[in-house]
């Protein structure tokens, strides 16, 4: 039973960490930073939160498989829609895991694969997060409880707010000119980040 409690708890925490990662990623893209919190700090925390969510996701998957009460194998966590137990909802979890794995691996190999390919794969985050949310709502034991509804609502509103910020024009739209006036030697590539 302890493993089952661990599965449920790590599932919830993974969703929260993924939400935080998405929000920080958007803040990073939009260059939301201050004098006290420079951009590389936002970038670093975003990266660490992503790695932390992967660690919690690993515990979530392994404890589910190790629990053994329901017939879920390790392959079911990676291959979508092949599980004997709740194939659709578990398949969504597997799909989300695969996309997240692709995002994390390509982020770690960013220098090797190039910025363009990394960016394209990184867009998968915007698909992976709602799929993970659907998985948690569809198969989560606590999905109907009041505290989980609050957690879900907070996560959804955070990501929606992040998406709204993402769609807004960059606040530093005029800054390249200002920066180029201040430091003309700096290349536009460096400014793009």
């Amino acid at each position, binding site marked *: 039973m302890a493993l089952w*409690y661990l599965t449920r*708890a790590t599932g919830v925490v993974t969703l*929260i960490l993924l939400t935080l990662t998405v929000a920080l990623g958007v803040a990073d893209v939009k260059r939301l930073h201050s004098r006290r*919190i420079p951009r590389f700090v936002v970038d670093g925390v975003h990266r*660490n939160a992503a790695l932390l969510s992967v660690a919690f996701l690993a515990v979530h998957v392994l404890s589910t498989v190790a629990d053994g009460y329901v017939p879920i194998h390790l392959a079911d966590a990676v291959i979508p829609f092949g599980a004997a*137990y709740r194939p659709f909802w578990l398949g969504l979890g597997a799909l989300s895991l695969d996309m997240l794995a692709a995002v994390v691996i390509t982020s770690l190999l960013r220098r090797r694969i190039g910025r363009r390919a990394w960016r394209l794969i990184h867009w998968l985050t915007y698909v992976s997060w709602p799929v993970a949310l659907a998985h948690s709502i569809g198969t989560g034991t606590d999905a109907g409880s009041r505290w989980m509804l609050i957690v879900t609502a907070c996560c959804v509103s955070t990501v929606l707010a992040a998406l709204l910020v993402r769609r807004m024009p960059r606040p530093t739209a005029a800054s390249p000119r200002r920066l180029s006036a201040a430091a003309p030697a700096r290349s536009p590539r460096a400014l793009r980040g």
Partner: protein
Amino acid sequence: MTKNSSPRRARGLRLIKRTTQGIALGALGLTGLVAAEAAGHTTAHHSASSTPTQSQSTTNTDPAAASEATTAASSLQAPSSTPSSSSSSSSGVVSGGS
């Protein structure tokens, strides 16, 4: 002075470390909290989506079914002719009925 050794960067790196530690501790604390909350309730998963391959422990059985079983056992025990000799309920039922 290199970029890595600037005080601003060092302060930023410390901030990343502290924030990450905070997030990790928060996540661990939340894991414990949710696990404790889950343990506090009856395990809806194991009773609702029961698979026939695994038997449930006595603490996790449906309360209604448990009380029904107790009632059935006591009603079977009642006609026993040797009430003082029954040490366990199951043996008492069998011997009393026959």
